[in-house]
């Protein structure tokens, strides 16, 4: 063996070492100092040989990682339970296991001038629209920041409108969700050190869907989806409707109900807007405290805060019992929205709408509705309209939007993404 090495020329000595002597699977040749430094910093071993212009980089890196666990932010009843972890390689394995297709592409990037974090753009080459893929890559390449700590950084650096309260990128820790998005012709971005994958382009309706919709019977799944639209409406508008009805349009409430509401509000010294702001504000504080506290104490605080403060506030005459019902229902609804990021945009908007309702009643609510709908209609996510496929009308894509039709009938991929291969399922 060594003999043959002695005989080889300078050039192929490297080849021979890498092919015959080293038993590590991932070996690459390097020829620049920068590359050498980068590889050492990423945990590789670099093998340099005297008189040779090239060196070998051996993937000897190993790090401790979290085990694969059940998704904590998007749990489902049925279907796969695994979720991404902080290790990019493990995450890619998750996807590879699900897509054994040579056209499944992983394009690697390095993000961060100093952190040099690995980032992978994945798509299926013969499904995803080229323009979309190029646009994503272009935006990723444009990122110039010292370190990319988490996918939230990437999300905010590549989104279309950073002023908008609405999330324009879908982040998920469920591999099945990523795979289904890839199969629709979307592009997913995975970042090392972060268990959340980013899916682009994102549309409004995606935030109200959950992977469990596809694991249940279609009638049930459709009804649950419709319920989620009602839930979104409640999460956004219920407190404002209460304010508007109490302050401006008492005539709208049926007489008997109006009398009982008036009786329960007797002694409440504040107008309905202030009453609602007090309760909603308290709830926001409780919610923030619940996130910070250790899990065991967090629940206790939730109960103490919710029950005790609510009850005490009513008996102290600061708020009316009906206000407590309204606030509680709103809070529960905003937790029922499958995507956390949409839930928080609703939280912000809710306060705006409450103010509008407090000053202009139903007219204010209507104007805020117009304002929000104008905003989302103007919004785009990577070249496709945010309101797709509802607006502009694409009836062919409606099979899987407000309701979910049987999988039997979903023969084509969504047209809105202009996939190269439209057929999804044989007849």
């Amino acid at each position, binding site marked *: 063996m060594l003999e043959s090495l002695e005989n080889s020329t300078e050039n192929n000595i490297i080849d021979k070492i890498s092919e015959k002597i080293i038993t590590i699977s991932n070996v690459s040749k390097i020829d620049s100092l920068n590359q050498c430094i980068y590889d050492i910093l990423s945990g590789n071993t670099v093998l340099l040989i005297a008189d040779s212009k090239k060196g070998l980089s051996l993937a000897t890196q190993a790090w401790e990682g979290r085990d694969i666990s059940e998704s904590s932010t998007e749990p489902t009843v049925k279907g796969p339970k695994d979720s991404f972890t902080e290790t990019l390689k493990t995450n890619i394995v998750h996807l590879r296991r699900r897509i054994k297709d040579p056209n499944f592409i992983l394009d690697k990037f390095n993000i961060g001038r100093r952190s040099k974090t690995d980032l992978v753009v994945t798509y299926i080459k013969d499904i995803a629209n080229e323009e979309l893929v190029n646009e994503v890559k272009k935006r990723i390449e444009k990122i110039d920041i010292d370190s990319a700590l988490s996918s939230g950084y990437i999300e905010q650096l590549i989104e279309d409108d950073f002023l908008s309260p609405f999330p324009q990128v879908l982040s998920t820790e469920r591999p099945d969700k990523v795979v289904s998005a890839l199969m629709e012709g979307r592009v997913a971005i995975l970042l090392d050190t972060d268990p959340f994958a980013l899916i682009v382009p994102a549309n409004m309706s995606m935030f109200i869907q959950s992977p469990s919709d596809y694991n249940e019977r279609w009638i049930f799944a459709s009804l649950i989806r419709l319920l989620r639209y009602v839930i979104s409406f409640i999460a956004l508008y219920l407190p404002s409707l209460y304010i508007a009805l109490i302050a401006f349009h008492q*005539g709208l*409430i*049926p007489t008997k109900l109006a009398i009982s509401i008036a009786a329960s509000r007797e002694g409440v010294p504040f107008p309905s807007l202030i009453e609602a702001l007090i309760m909603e504000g308290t709830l926001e504080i409780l919610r923030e405290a619940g996130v910070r506290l250790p899990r065991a104490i967090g629940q206790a605080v939730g109960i103490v805060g919710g029950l005790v403060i609510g009850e005490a506030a009513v008996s102290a005459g600061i708020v009316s019992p009906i206000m407590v019902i309204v606030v509680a229902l709103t809070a529960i609804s905003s937790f029922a929205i499958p995507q956390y990021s949409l839930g928080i945009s609703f939280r912000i908007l809710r306060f705006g709408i409450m103010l509008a309702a407090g000053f202009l009643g*139903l*007219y204010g609510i209507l*104007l805020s509705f117009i304002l929000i709908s*104008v905003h989302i209609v103007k919004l785009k996510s990577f070249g496709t309209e945010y309101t797709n496929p509802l607006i*502009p*009308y694409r009836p062919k894509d409606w099979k899987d939007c407000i309701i979910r039709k049987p999988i039997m009938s979903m023969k084509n991929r969504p047209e809105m993404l202009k996939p190269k291969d439209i057929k999804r399922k044989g007849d």
Partner: protein
Amino acid sequence: MNNPKDKITTTQASIAIASTLVGMGIITIPRTVGVVVNTPDVWISVLLGGLISFLFGYIVVTLSKKFPDKTFFQYSYDITGRYLGFIFNIIVIVYFILFSSFEVRILGEITKSYLLDKTPIELIMIFFLSVGVYLVVGGINPIVRICQVYFPIICLLFFSVMFISLEHFEINNIRPVLGKGILPVIRGVKVTALIYTGFEIIFILLPFMKNSDKALKATMIGISIPLLFYLTSSIIGIGVLTIEESINVTYPLMAIVSEFEFPGGFIERFEVFFSIIWVLALYTSFVVSYYCASFGLSKTFKKDINFFIYALLPIIYIIGIFPENLDIVFKLGDLFADFGLFVAGLMPILLLLIIYIKGVVYEKK
């Protein structure tokens, strides 16, 4: 001239036209036309008015199609030359400005009487205008998309309300048909011009369309949906209220809706709910005409459109607030109907004649 990616589809064009036409007319039509006709035959006038609009729509599209990649504000110069073209442009722009002001004022009046009786109308109008500007600065594409959002809501609410009203419908109220002959009906047709004008926006929409060949289809659908709205409104309005009562209340349809009772429901006074349709319908009409006016100004004076959008805001407001009371608003509305008849009917015919006489041939680049 604009991003080819974002062309308007035929559906979008139809809905944009329909949304512009469905506006204040819905709840006032049994009265505005009823006063002139004074027989239960209001619906015949509405129907005839619609048929005439089809004809005018056809003429407008024929004219616009001669210059498929130009809007009215550009080809008016090609047809009549620099000075006359300028005058025609100004006429159309003034028309759209008046249209917007009218919508804003009516919205203020309705909101004040049904939703916010203590808030000053000025404030209501200013808020509405600001929400309008936010959409208009986005350009034509968001505008047509917002029409697509609201139009199904308006249709659903309107027709379900009309369906519920059938309970009080008396067929005898709309009889006898043509009891006083055809003459009152003909007189009514002229008044219907006020509710059908608005399809002129195809002047501006056509070059933005993906298939400008289908502009005629879009216009026809765009007119027939409002025709259905107004026909329903006039038949049900008079069928429930009788012609005598219809011409004595300001908003006949609101009068019908206020009689609804929902046992076990949460809503006591339904007309408030109905006024929501109204705000949405007026919003789309307002925004489209506001955009057309600013667009026209920017093409005529060759300046950035955003400048004119903001410049028009106070003008629309001042014109809108100017009439002292609702009676004057409605009287001005009748005058405005004549103006609309000129812009949508006479002017396109005139321009077409000039084309044939002068032999203007436009070749697409």
